[in-house]
């Protein structure tokens, strides 16, 4: 059956680079990123739209890439964790997560980084409640979140206020 179904052309800019692929329509955005483009920084966690490990930015807004078809990104721009560091310099949000040890196993971290980026774009000086709302779609099963909050506060303070 799948062989009989015409493939669909998806053209998308990922981390500033233009890609075009002919894919099965049922390909999800996360599978497109990982399996077609070999960008494996975006993780599949629960695969049910709950945990947020697969969070990427689509046209400047976070989405759960396990619950978006690749064709929905056609003509658009995607930012993944691979697009954050520039010239081997960590993005300030990545640096804050590193400095504050805002992770343990690290599996959920790519998703948290993207949600933090969105949060700080919308709330450059977030309250505690803004932070909680901002990362409500991301689950971490290691940390208990305290160092993640610390990393986000640190990133918001522009890298100052670094605690451990």
């Amino acid at each position, binding site marked *: *059956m*799948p062989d009989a*179904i*015409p493939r*669909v052309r998806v053209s998308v800019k990922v981390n500033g680079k233009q890609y075009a692929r002919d894919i*099965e*329509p*049922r390909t*999800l955005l996360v*599978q497109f990123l990982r399996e077609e483009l070999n960008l494996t920084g975006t993780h599949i966690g629960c*695969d*049910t*739209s*709950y945990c*947020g490990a697969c*969070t990427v930015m*689509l046209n400047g*807004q*976070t*989405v*759960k890439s*396990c*619950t*978006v*078809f690749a*064709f*929905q990104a*056609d003509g658009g721009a995607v930012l993944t964790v691979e697009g954050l560091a520039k010239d081997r310099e960590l993005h300030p949000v990545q640096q804050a997560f590193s400095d504050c040890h805002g992770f343990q196993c690290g599996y959920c971290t790519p998703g948290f980084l993207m*949600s933090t980026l*969105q949060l700080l774009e919308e709330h450059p000086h977030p309250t505690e*409640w803004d932070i909680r*709302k*901002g990362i*409500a*779609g*991301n689950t971490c099963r290691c940390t208990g979140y305290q160092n993640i909050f610390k990393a986000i506060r640190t990133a918001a303070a522009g890298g100052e206020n670094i605690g451990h």
Partner: protein
Amino acid sequence: MYPGAFAYHRAASYSEAISQLSELGDDAKFLAGGQSLIPLLKLRLSMPRHLVDLNFIPETSYIRSNGALRIGAMTRHSQIAASPDAARMPILRDCAAGIADPQVRHMGTIGGSIAEADPTGDWAPVLLATGATVKTLGLNGERSIDIADFILDAYQSALQPAELVTEIEVPHPPTRSGGAYIALKRCAPVYASASVAVQVTLHDDYSCRDARVYLGVLGLTATRVPAAEEALQGQQLNAEILGKVRAAVMDTAQPTSDMRGSADYKRQAAGRLATLAVEAAFQRARGDDVEVTHLYA
């Protein structure tokens, strides 16, 4: 997880989408934001052979204040949450800003949400409380359907085959009106355990001229609570009236026990949510700027 295989059809207009779907027959579905449909496809609870994509149709995502508040069917929840026009009816913002989590709100659409008619959906009680009308387009042209006649049963709307939602029309409320929507959730990404939508209009002396109270989540469709509305009618808000509202809600609610809580827990929750929502609705109707948020267990 891979959904079952399907063929892809991108529509350039609603009328093209309708003719595509009617030609493809029963094995075809519309795709709006996909935040409910895609999980169902991945679990293969639904296996359509064709998807007609509504995401690339221009002019379907908008919020306009023109005689009424008009929300395009493909408007994302996050757009409604951020809209100054929608903010003039705070109950809409309560609802839009509280749906699931930021990622889901960026994709999910109001039209898709009500077309699905999921009993745990957030929009139905809010649109019922505000007296909204659903605009549709199908093979037989346009229809305007009162939201109360649109949602028929769990997962069943009044949409005919190949008919789709184009716009939600929310009437501008009279002066001294206010509303609130509050849900109790175990955490952000999951469906609520209970929710209550309240919309009131007050007289000059702040006694209640008109009230609508709806419960979400607790039945196969949103449940109206006439006894709570009658308790509020003509009254100033005080502890005694709030107690009557709470009792009416707890009496009317017929929840079932499941993983979101026992029936008794949900009934208690609905009573408490109703008093919070009524208080916030009255304060907003008096012109106070009151922020409400969902409660997270």
